[in-house]
């Protein structure tokens, strides 16, 4: 078993689709929180085979998309500093700032390098002792433990030319903000599988206990998603409010305790701003006192003030699931993956990028 192809079986998929279409006729709104789910759902054509009463809403689970405009502009300021190397995940390159983007800065000569892993920055710092390496650390609970491990390794190896501009966010608080929003009516959530691998299923239990909303943790292969939808639609139709884990080959109820230890050692939980959604209580991570020497903002004495927005861009409403990309006047006209206006069109798992690539007029 290689844990990939088995979960893409056509015959099983067809049966699951059939089953999904025979559970309930009532109108059901389901949000898939995670951007990787959004992409998988489009890639495997799952939207095309859903029963007409099931409406899938894409949520705010794309870290690049929810990073506010002020963060992007500050990365551009940092890239202008002397003797600096900016290390970043590739998705960040094209996100437009007010005046430029990292991609444009690189073409103008700034030293900006794409990394696959935060840990790549350790060797980069060692091999460039006369430079200061700044990692743009974005990501949810899945990615944040790696930033913590990298900072701890840097401390252990006494690497003093590595810094982090962090914008790590945690997912359950933004979900709470969404379910409290009276304009949104979400009946159930497909819960983010790889965030759950770290934090477990317990942090989502407030959904069923306090809000009568069910949630199912699923994987990212087509059979995982279809089985997750079957369970979720069944729970909703029976008004059986609970959090189920259908990704047990990866996710444990208590999550990954080792990753939690790393997170707790390096970070404090702080309030954080989400693009288009606003400031959410205790929804972000910031280095604690022990690791503040690694904080790029403190090292470069940057007075960071948060602000948001590109004129006309509806990213915020899209991230909240209130409108679809096709409802935005800029979509496919002024805003394309080549010339994005908002971050949701840039990231490969942004909702607008997914719609741009896969959406057909489904009536």
């Amino acid at each position, binding site marked *: *078993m*290689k*844990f*990939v192809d*088995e979960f893409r*079986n056509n*015959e*099983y998929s067809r*049966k*699951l689709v*059939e*089953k999904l279409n*025979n559970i309930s006729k009532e109108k059901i709104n389901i949000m898939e929180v*995670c*951007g*990787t789910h959004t992409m998988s759902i489009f890639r495997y054509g799952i939207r095309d085979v859903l029963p007409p009463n099931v409406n899938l809403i894409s949520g705010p*689970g*794309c*870290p*690049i998309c929810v990073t506010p405009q002020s963060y992007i502009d500050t990365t551009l300021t940092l890239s202008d500093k002397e003797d600096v190397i900016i290390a970043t*995940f590739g*998705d960040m390159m094209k996100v437009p700032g007010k005046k430029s983007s990292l991609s444009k800065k690189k073409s103008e000569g700034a030293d900006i390098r794409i990394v*696959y*892993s*935060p*840990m*790549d920055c350790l060797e980069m710092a060692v091999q460039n002792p006369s430079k200061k390496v700044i990692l743009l650390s*974005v*990501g*949810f609970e*899945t*990615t944040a*433990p*790696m930033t913590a*491990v990298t900072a701890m390794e840097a401390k252990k190896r006494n690497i003093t030319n590595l810094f982090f501009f962090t914008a790590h966010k945690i997912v359950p608080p933004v979900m709470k903000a969404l379910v409290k929003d009276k304009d949104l009516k979400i009946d159930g959530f497909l819960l*983010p*599988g*790889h*965030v759950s*691998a*770290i934090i477990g299923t317990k942090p989502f239990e407030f959904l069923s206990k306090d809000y009568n909303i069910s949630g199912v943790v699923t994987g*990212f292969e087509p*059979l995982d998603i279809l*089985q997750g939808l079957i369970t979720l639609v069944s729970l909703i139709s029976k008004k059986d409010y609970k959090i189920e884990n*259908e990704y*047990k*080959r*990866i*996710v*444990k109820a208590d999550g*990954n305790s*080792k*990753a939690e230890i*790393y997170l707790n050692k390096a970070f404090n939980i702080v309030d954080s701003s989400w693009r288009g959604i606003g400031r959410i209580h205790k929804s972000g991570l910031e280095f604690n006192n022990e690791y503040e020497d690694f904080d790029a903002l403190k090292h470069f004495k940057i007075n960071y003030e948060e602000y948001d927005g590109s004129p006309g861009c509806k990213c915020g409403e899209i991230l909240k699931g209130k409108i679809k990309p096709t409802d935005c006047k800029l979509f496919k006209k002024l805003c394309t993956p080549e010339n994005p206006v908002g971050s949701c069109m840039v*990231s490969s*798992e942004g909702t607008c990028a997914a719609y741009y690539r896969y959406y057909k007029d489904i009536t």
Partner: protein
Amino acid sequence: MCLAVPGKVLSLDGDKGIVEIGNIKREVFMHLISDVSVNEYVLVHAGCAIEKVDEEEAKITMDIFKELIENEVC
């Protein structure tokens, strides 16, 4: 960005290991998992193993799908 893929552990050396993902072999950091052995599968995200893949649980899930086909109702 939460994309993660399963891969087979080919060798281990302290906090690092070589993992085969599809046809690619690459170095992966193992800080976040405990008691991993060669030939086991791990889930890799951004160069780090974030969890072991539980083969028994995967088999149980596959059995549920098989049962669905065998007990065809339509």
